[in-house]
């Protein structure tokens, strides 16, 4: 059997997904045995022109991690889609936007203002901002353009499979490696994880869900046996897909929602608003105000990994601030 051709790429991500690939330990040898890697910026010195030179549809699988928030990432997503038979959104950022998608609470102008002017370490009285092109000694230098809105991979190109997780757990990566090795791929569009919620799979003792105070994780040492929600800690388990092996729960830390919404849930954040408000025992106006006070940052808590993939996708842009734009996403 001819060796598979494998591409691994990172866009707006932290690099943790690439490390997760190495976390499969000795199985990486199996990957090396099965596949020739055509690009993997974190580990190998292939250039973009090497990828451009490949015929279309010649790469068997592309594992793409990271969200899309600049023109270089968009270009590479489109390039790798054209070259690959199977495109996999690898990790929460590629699947749902991930942590970078919290940038959708702001926009390019605000980000530039903060980073290049307001930050205490910035000394920039001339208000110089990054340009997409500049002339230096008669040569033009280029930089990618930062977008106003962070996008998921599927908002830019067609995606065949989704492996969620921040980062994806080793057993799910192995499941995909095995599927590739045996040629038994799941149906297109499948999310390689559980179809149930994390709560469904969580083994903690669950009694009655009624709380009167919300603790932030640093304010309390939770009982390691009992349901974290019942102890007043916001856990995203009720509206998060399972299949992660409940790693955070095992470490006595609440679920933060990195596996995204389970099948049938359209908006993870709105569902979490529903479930958390349902169990908080507040009747009087005063108690209600306390609940709102204790949930300090609803968007950051309920859409921590999923803002780009949510129904509203981003903070509303006032109509006056909408300038000319580059090109509509698919």
């Amino acid at each position, binding site marked *: 059997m001819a060796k598979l051709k494998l591409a691994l790429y990172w866009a707006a991500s932290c690099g943790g997904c690439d490390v997760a690939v190495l976390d499969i330990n000795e199985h990486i040898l199996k990957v090396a045995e099965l596949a020739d890697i055509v690009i993997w910026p974190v580990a190998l010195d292939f250039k973009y022109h090497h990828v451009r030179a490949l015929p279309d549809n010649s790469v068997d699988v592309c594992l793409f991690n990271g969200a899309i928030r600049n023109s270089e990432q968009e270009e590479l997503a489109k390039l790798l889609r054209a070259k690959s038979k199977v495109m996999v959104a690898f990790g929460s950022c590629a699947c749902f936007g991930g942590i970078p998608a919290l940038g959708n*609470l702001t926009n390019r102008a605000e980000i530039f203002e903060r980073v290049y002017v307001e930050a205490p370490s910035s000394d920039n009285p001339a208000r110089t901002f990054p340009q997409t092109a500049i002339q230096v000694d008669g040569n033009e230098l280029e930089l990618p353009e930062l977008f*106003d809105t962070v996008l998921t991979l599927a908002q830019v190109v067609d995606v065949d499979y989704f492996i969620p997780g921040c980062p994806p757990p080793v057993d799910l990566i192995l499941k995909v490696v095995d599927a590739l090795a045996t040629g038994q791929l799941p149906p297109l569009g499948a999310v390689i994880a559980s179809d149930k919620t994390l709560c469904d799979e969580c083994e903690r003792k669950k009694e009655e869900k009624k709380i009167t105070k919300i603790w932030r994780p640093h304010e309390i040492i939770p009982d390691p046996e009992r349901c974290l929600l019942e102890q007043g800690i916001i856990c995203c388990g009720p509206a998060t897909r399972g299949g992660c092996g409940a790693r955070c729960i095992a470490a006595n830390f609440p679920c933060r929602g990195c596996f995204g919404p389970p099948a049938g849930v359209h908006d993870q954040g709105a*569902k979490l*608003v529903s479930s958390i408000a349902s169990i908080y025992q*507040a009747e009087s106006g005063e108690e209600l105000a306390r609940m709102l006070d204790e949930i300090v940052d609803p968007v950051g808590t309920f859409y921590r990994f999923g803002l780009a993939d949510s129904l509203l996708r*981003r*903070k509303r*842009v006032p109509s006056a601030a909408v300038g000319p*734009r580059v090109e*509509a996403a698919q």
Partner: protein
Amino acid sequence: MATDRFEPTILCFACNWCSYAGADLAGTSRIQYQPNVRVIRVMCSGRIDPTFVVKAFQKGVDGVLICGCHIGDCHYIEGNHKAARRIPLLKKMLAQLGIEEERVRLEWVSASEGDRFASVINEVTDQIRKLGPFSRNGGEQHG
């Protein structure tokens, strides 16, 4: 007669047992109110998943009104208690996403309050007309 006045599109979820009956009473009593509201009957205000409200904004409505039984009158005992907690939390979250809190409103309307239903609709319509059209301006676009 054509006017340039902004006519908002407002979605109203009304519970089957109180508010929808209140809306019926407003109709049979021939109380006039502004025609901007589209009423959807649901079994209980506790049935209003915050996703419905978010989805309504995604689809481009200018405001959402949720009507349920007065506290203590819920046909399902505590459905409206849940709505009373969910909607304020949802409003706090929507505010972070740039959606004015005034665009979402929770009101209690009983089956005998036809006149109140009409006045709530008028108030909400005027308020949202003042806020202007809701437009997401972005999200599908990245530039």
